[in-house]
């Protein structure tokens, strides 16, 4: 899952990016409203973390123009503006959630997970596909109730595929979901992770659609 963080304060930006990466999210970070708009136009993000008090273009304006252009990306506002009127305004203008600074990293990742879950149309925090159960909050994976040990990247890949069962994701799309800007991607990493996941969860769990990409079939 790839997130775009818009935050002008370097210390907070760096901290949030680190913290969310530890949770297995790919995080890109920009420091002003205009850079945020350019990045959003790439259309690779699953969620936008938006500070309101931005230099250049204010967060509220970024959000408003985003929604005007019909972009439905989930938006979580991170701001020091805590007045009820500010929160109401933020939500009414199109934010999906609102978190006031200073916030707890655990709460931030929980809210991010909740928004992502809602986005893929699920209410159950646990994803169940066939005999595989996956818990995004704890990063635990079970195969028929037996725990399976996965690396952070393996889990991220599995989560990306399992989030939309039946949808085919290209290698490029998967790379985008796994890696932020500054992270080096080796040419065959996706294949390596897919191979390792198949070994742990069964050969048929991840299907290869030749020339298109990979998918996890909907459980029958």
């Amino acid at each position, binding site marked *: 899952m790839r997130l775009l963080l818009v935050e002008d*304060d*370097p*210390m*907070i930006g*760096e*901290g*949030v990016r*680190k*913290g969310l990466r*530890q949770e297995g999210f790919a995080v890109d970070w920009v420091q*002003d409203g205009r850079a945020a708009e350019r990045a959003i136009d790439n259309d690779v993000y699953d969620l936008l973390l938006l500070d309101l008090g931005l*230099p*250049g273009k204010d967060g509220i304006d970024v959000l408003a123009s985003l929604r005007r252009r019909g972009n439905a990306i989930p938006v979580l506002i991170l701001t*020091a*503006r*805590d007045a009820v009127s500010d929160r109401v305004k933020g939500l009414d203008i199109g934010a999906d959630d609102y978190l*006031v*600074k*200073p*916030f*707890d*990293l*655990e709460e931030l990742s929980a809210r991010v997970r909740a928004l992502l879950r809602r986005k893929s149309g699920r209410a159950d925090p646990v994803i169940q596909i066939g005999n595989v159960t996956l818990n995004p909050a704890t990063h635990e994976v079970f195969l028929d109730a037996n725990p399976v040990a996965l690396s952070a990247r393996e889990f991220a890949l599995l989560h990306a595929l399992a989030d939309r069962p039946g949808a085919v994701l290209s290698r490029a799309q998967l790379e985008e979901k796994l890696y932020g800007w500054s992270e080096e991607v080796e040419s065959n990493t996706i294949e390596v992770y897919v191979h390792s996941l198949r070994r742990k969860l069964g050969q048929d769990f991840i299907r290869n659609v030749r020339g298109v990409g990979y998918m996890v079939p909907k459980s029958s």
Partner: protein
Amino acid sequence: MKSIRHRLLVWLLSGLTLAVAAAGLRIYFQTLEEANALFDFHLKQMAASLPSDAFGPVPPPSLGARDLQDQLIVQIWDRTGVQLYFSRPGSNLPQRAELGFSTVITQQGRWRIYSAMERNNVVQVAQPMRLRQALAAGMALRSIVPLLLLLPVLAVLIWITVGSGLRPLNRIASALGERTPQSLPALEEGPMPIEVRPLVQALNDLLGRLARALESQRNFVADAAHELRTPLTAVQLQIQLAERAESEAERRAAFTDLKQGISRASHLVRQLLTLARQEPDAAQRPDVEVDLAEIARRVLSEQAPLAAERNIELGITGDDDVAVPVRGDGEALRVMLGNLVDNAIRYTPGGGAVDVSLRATQDRAEIIVADTGSGIPESDRERVFDRFYRRDGSETQGSGLGLAIVKNIADRHGAVIALDDAEPGLRVRVSFPRP
């Protein structure tokens, strides 16, 4: 005596009573004087009309009222001093008298006596003075009694008038009682006595200033709380990252960040306190004569380590021996110049220079801080003095308060700040009026 009503009542009534008493005395003495003239005339007439024949019957006196006649004592002597007649023997009157009018004091009081030679006899008529005094006193009393009876009526009138005159004050008091720190509307200026109007206007003026001061304090606190959230958020994030750190290196990196976050929060708190102390309403140290050149030297020696760390050439240009005196608060001026130099150093890339220079003309004293940084565009030059204003794209971490503090201190000293382009960079000129 604290009540105006009481005081007015007591003083007015005392004054009136004194005035009535004075009038009574005046009437008394005036009447007495007139009575004297009149009665003396009567005495003279009486003496002239008495029969000179010592053995004749005493005719009833033809002048004066009965009681007056009763009080008259007549004596007649012949030339040899033999008493021929005494209308009331036994009275303690002098047996001989000078001719003409005289006043004698006897055991029965003072007597007015008139003696005259009538042919061969001396005739003397005496009358007690008491009579005249009683007449005058009666006259005086009759005049002042109605006035004295009016006094209670006047007291009631004064009580009522003063009460109604003071009623606007009660209205103001209860209107003021309704004011709270949250709501300080002006008092109504409707119809009121002209004596009360200046009070209401002064109060309204005060209420207005108070409301503005409270508003600015509230904004300041809200802004400050808002601004403190940012470094606190950074600190909280870094603590959590430190907790999660899996390796010693990660933990150390997290702690380094954490320390930075804390020093940033402390810097902001320090600047907030400085700003609060420099607010126009804050208690102030008395102004003294201070030397800007001395202050500049102190600030530069304080800032030298930061400049060295950033590889920036920092110094005073021009003649640094000349004193540049201004009137003001030396500590505040040091803070002001410190902020200007600190800003200049932070916004100047390594290898640049920050120059401080001083200039004194006939009526102004100027301190100029010039750097070789990127400058401030024309459009931002007003707003950089706003609290917490950060310029678009400014990368350097500051509290957003430095220039607001500079402005406050300059304003307090009646100094003018001008920003313009150095070649290249920013030149800040603070111009003080000369003492």
